[in-house]
């Protein structure tokens, strides 16, 4: 049964339809949540929160605005994960990280404990770099360049125009380019 029909049935309160939507999308949502949190337990919490939010607000889902349920659910997941990260990050200091010198620091060795820890640190630094983006830019960047959602779907999920999404993505890329090389792009 296609998603659209299942969503209509779920809107009517059909429990089987809710279950079907959950089974269809749970793995992708869990993996997306894990990509953000890096922790299996946190990813499970984010996944549950995503489905609770989506099912509680299913009546607000409009096929004319958000073109498919999958994208809509993913946008909820990304926003929930970012909120969760922000709650965690609010306890950290606000300085943002540059990746300029990082490539040289990454150990090229095998999978020893020290190398693994260093690599984990490097991944964390890459993730922290994304904090220079505004929450909206970050959500757009992740939807577009991590989850490969259409610009049209992103606009539908976030309630803005497609041109606004394109502008924000362009600004986000410009900011991130500077974390790699501050002079990149200058004449």
């Amino acid at each position, binding site marked *: 049964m296609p998603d659209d029909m299942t969503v*209509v049935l779920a*809107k*009517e*309160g*059909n*429990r089987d339809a*809710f*279950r079907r939507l*959950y*089974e269809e999308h*749970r*793995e992708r949502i*869990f*993996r997306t949540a*894990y*990509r953000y949190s890096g922790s*299996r337990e946190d*990813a*499970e919490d984010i*996944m*549950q929160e995503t*489905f*609770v*939010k*989506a*099912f*509680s607000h299913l*009546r607000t889902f409009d096929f004319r605005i958000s073109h498919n349920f999958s994208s809509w659910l993913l946008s909820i997941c990304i926003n929930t994960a970012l909120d969760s990260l922000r709650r965690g990050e609010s306890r950290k200091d606000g300085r943002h990280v540059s*990746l300029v010198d*990082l*490539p040289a620091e*990454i150990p*090229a060795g095998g999978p020893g404990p020290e190398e693994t820890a260093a*690599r984990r640190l*490097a*991944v964390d630094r*890459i993730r922290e*770099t*994304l904090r220079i983006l505004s929450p909206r830019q970050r959500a757009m*960047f*992740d939807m*577009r*360049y*991590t989850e*490969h959602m259409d610009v049209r779907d992103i606009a539908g999920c976030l309630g803005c125009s497609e041109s606004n999404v394109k502008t924000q993505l362009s600004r986000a*890329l410009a900011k*991130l*380019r500077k974390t*790699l*090389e501050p002079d*990149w*792009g200058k004449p």
Partner: protein
Amino acid sequence: MNCRDFQNLIVIAVHGRLTADERSELDRHLSACQECAARHERYAPLIDLQAKAEDGVADVALPDWEKSWAVISEKALPHGKPRSRFFTLVPRWVPVAAAVLLVFALGYFVGRGILVDRTTSSPGVASAVIADQPSPLLFANYADSLKPVLVNFLNRSDVRPPDELRALEREIIRDILSRTRLLRSLAAESEDAALGDLLIDLEFILTSMANLVPGDTESAVHLERMIREKDIAPRLRELASTATI
């Protein structure tokens, strides 16, 4: 795509994931562009890290789906009877808007009914006009009010009445004159030509009566003659029973 676009793909590869198409396009460009290839080389360790982190995402142990479902269904799923298909497809604000509209419509029609009732219990042109519908009794009522005025004028004596009485007569004539004008507009709408002609004559006669200067016998006689020659009384009697308003 130009070099700047491919440089953006490097940024995306560091912070996100490239699609298979983007990956192969980038590889093709890197084999032809030394500058972009040098940049890519510099950030290859970061890109590699992102790819490995992605592998970690793919390898992560999946949670206990049933346990999660129990939490989700407890928190989010409706517990009562499912909503019918009709109520699901109709947005929730529609019944509320319909209820408000119904209350408004009821208020309007009940209020209108009260106004119409008042018109019939207290006959008068003004209130009848408020009711916004020509009453079949309208012209008949008007004729009943007009007759004594005309009779009084035709049977007037040479004795000058007291000032208070003259003021009252003038007030009554003015009132009937204003009703005559209202009826004329209604007659024009109903396209009743005979009634329209009579009301034009009556408007002229009543205006003359209202402006009659005491002692101006000549004008009074002229007016009296006009009332008789124009057969005002018989026309009034006839139209009182046949008028469309």
